[in-house]
């Protein structure tokens, strides 16, 4: 393969350089019916799972067919999306915040052929390329992070557990039988590139072993003061270490009981790796939300301290999530989000009904806010 220049001249990097131009203007990409009726929409309805209609003051309608997608997407797959959008939607489409793909058409007759086309497309193993759903009182697509496909600090994979979980929750992606929407999110370490800390159900990768110390290389690879400063619990201090061959080197020591396994030191210092096949795994959190509807936005709470990484399909994780959703579906009131339900019945009842073990790991002991999560009342349920 021969190098093909774009026109960029490395000897004169500033020549013809264009910078600071920002994104393309959104209006270039609006379908005509959107451009015409922007700001003048009257109402919307969900006609069936995955199919929405928005009606404008002008009487115009836009029908949206929503499909799930793996956010990890090849350009061949995107080209297929383009082919569908060219065929049915005049060459326009959009993505949602939760990695769904939305195809929009301007009349009802165009919906069925589009839907049929989408559902007819399958991958070699039988997976849908474009499953239709993700609307209303159901489970929509999981927002997630990179995991083992591209990140240096993950404690679990992202695309793998997401595929496994969505396979298990698929019926709730394509239906709307739940009391309210259930938002599932995954972050592959506690840096949480996604907003999993406010999700109905969050899958979170977590390390459980302090960093290993590559003493021989630590001072060569890292700025020791930066590694020390990176630790949120001040568990790292400078240390002189004698190597097996007798040489003395500058390195660090870790106060292991103080380590919260966040990996910030590793981000600053590659000679302090944390990853471990049995140490790493998954924390399950539940009951968060971002919407201000009825109750204020809530953080998710830790309900399972640890499941191992069981590649390729993470069965303990997916079974636990399925059980929580089934229990919620059977017990919660209409419009009640998972967290609102848990608060109404009480967390002691939540653990009982979801058949989850309550261990000491679930009682907050991280700094001041911990106190506010303990129970200061005589009111509890037997």
């Amino acid at each position: 393969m021969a190098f093909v220049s774009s026109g960029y001249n490395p000897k004169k990097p500033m020549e013809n350089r264009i910078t600071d131009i920002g994104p393309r203007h959104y209006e270039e990409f609006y379908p005509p019916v959107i451009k015409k009726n922007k700001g003048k929409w009257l109402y919307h309805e969900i006609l069936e799972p995955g199919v929405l209609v928005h009606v404008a003051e002008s009487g115009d309608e836009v029908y949206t067919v929503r499909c799930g997608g793996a956010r990890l997407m090849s350009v061949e797959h995107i080209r297929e999306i383009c082919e569908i959008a060219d065929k049915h939607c005049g060459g326009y489409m959009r993505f949602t915040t939760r990695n769904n793909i939305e195809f929009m058409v301007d009349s009802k007759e165009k919906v069925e052929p589009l839907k049929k086309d989408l559902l007819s497309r399958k991958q070699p193993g039988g997976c849908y390329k474009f499953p239709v759903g993700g609307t209303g009182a159901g489970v929509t697509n999981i927002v997630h992070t990179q995991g083992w496909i591209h990140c240096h600090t993950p404690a679990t994979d992202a695309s793998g557990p997401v595929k496994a979980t969505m396979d298990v929750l698929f019926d709730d992606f394509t239906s709307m039988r739940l009391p309210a929407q259930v938002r599932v999110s995954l972050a592959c370490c506690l840096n949480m590139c996604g907003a999993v800390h406010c999700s109905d159900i969050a899958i979170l990768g977590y390390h459980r072993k302090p960093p290993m110390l590559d003493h021989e290389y630590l001072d060569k690879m890292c700025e020791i003061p930066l590694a020390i400063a990176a630790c949120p619990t001040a568990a790292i201090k400078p240390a002189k270490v004698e190597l097996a061959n007798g040489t003395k080197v500058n390195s660090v020591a870790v106060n292991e009981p103080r380590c919260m396994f966040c990996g910030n030191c590793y981000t600053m210092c590659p000679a302090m790796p944390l990853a471990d096949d049995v140490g790493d795994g998954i924390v399950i959190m539940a009951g968060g939300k971002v919407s201000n509807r009825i109750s204020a936005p809530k953080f998710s709470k830790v309900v399972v301290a640890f499941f191992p990484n069981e590649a390729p399909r993470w069965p303990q994780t997916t079974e636990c999530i399925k059980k929580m959703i089934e229990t919620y579906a059977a017990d919660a009131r209409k419009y009640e989000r998972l967290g609102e339900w848990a608060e109404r019945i009480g967390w002691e009842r939540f653990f009982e009904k979801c058949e989850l073990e309550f261990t000491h790991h679930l009682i907050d002991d991280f700094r001041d806010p911990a106190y506010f999560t303990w129970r200061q009342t005589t009111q509890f349920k037997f």
Partner: protein
Amino acid sequence: MAKHKTPLLDQLETGPWPSFVSDIKRQAEFRAKNKDKIEYQIPVDVCEDLLGILELSFKHGRTHWKHGGIVGVFGYGGGVIGRYCDQPEMFPGVAHFHTMRVNQPGGKFYTTEYLKTLCDLWDFRGSGITNMHGSTGDIILLGTTTPQLEEIFFELTHKYNQDLGGSGSNLRTPSDCVGEARCEWSCYDTQALCFNLTNEYQDELHRPAFPYKFKFKFDGCPNCCVASIARADISFIGTWKDNIRVDHEAVAAYVGGELAPNGGAHAGRDWGPFDIMKEVVNLCPTECMAYKDGKLLINNRECTRCMHCIAVMPRALRIGNDRGLSILVGAKAPILDGAQMSTMLVPFIKVEEPYDEIKEVIEKIWDWWMEEGKNRERLGELMKRQGFQRLLEATGLDPDPRMVQEPRTNPYIFWKADEVEGGFDRDVNEYRKHHQR
């Protein structure tokens, strides 16, 4: 014939949900065949090696990616994330596998014409693997080599009129909800404000000069579909001041069962006939509603605009006309000191071009944070460390009970000398004239 055996990943090629494994294999095959005779600028087998290294991670239960190292394009400090694998001999195709963040268009609307050109570019100069989209909102182009970075940037800016997004300690790529483009609940034009501020602050976006990352997110209404309240340092959330508009005939149609509640969102189960008292009036968090003699009454002054009634009866109830947004500040994920939601700072501000009032608030916050913020300290953490009062001083805003959940429960007020009559300078001898030692 696949380059690497992937027995673990292969188990993710069944089941109903789209398989990313099948998709990467598809791209691998496409590259191997190369029927369009593309002069690939990075290894042809990049996708095969990506599957190979991922299989190894599935086997080991550990990632095989190393730290970034400093790579980027000239003059920018963000937009490129360096990535190298820790088994380059086994997987030379992904020895370098850098990410480029491309600033997505507002509302994530696309023409296929644009998307196809991006596909062609990423086929030619990258792995052909993307994220649509990353958590922050960018188009993520996953996997290229160092020599390609400037070439890709040159093509993006010259051919596609398209810039990179943010990374590192800078303004991260702002993102917005679908907004007025296709939502009747949007209280302002999220795309217009997002676009304007993104362009206004290009320097802050591309050249890291902040203590840490800083995020803007634009939600058109309190439903917060882009989760601004949970993850943006400044959350711009649409709201209104006047009355919810009521169409009494449509209310009657909901009560009469002619219209499905919640826009049909609960159609998958028989929840029984719609009960306006149980499902709307009694769920109102402020109890500002009543249903009497077939008429829905709303005491709008007591309404906190939670959106529930509007969501249940979208054809009968509409947001008010006197619209604007609330500015909440300081949300972040748990690292380091625990998760924080955004806190109310400006309860209501009009959204009018050129948005000078909004920019004034932003810039005052930045001045304070850049002066006082420690390395890797998010705005929310600075607020906690120095107190909400410092934020009020920095922004020149007046205190308002809307900013708090409740007043303080301790009386430990840090009175300042100029707040107390006569100040703190006193004469102890004068005091002793009346009080013996």
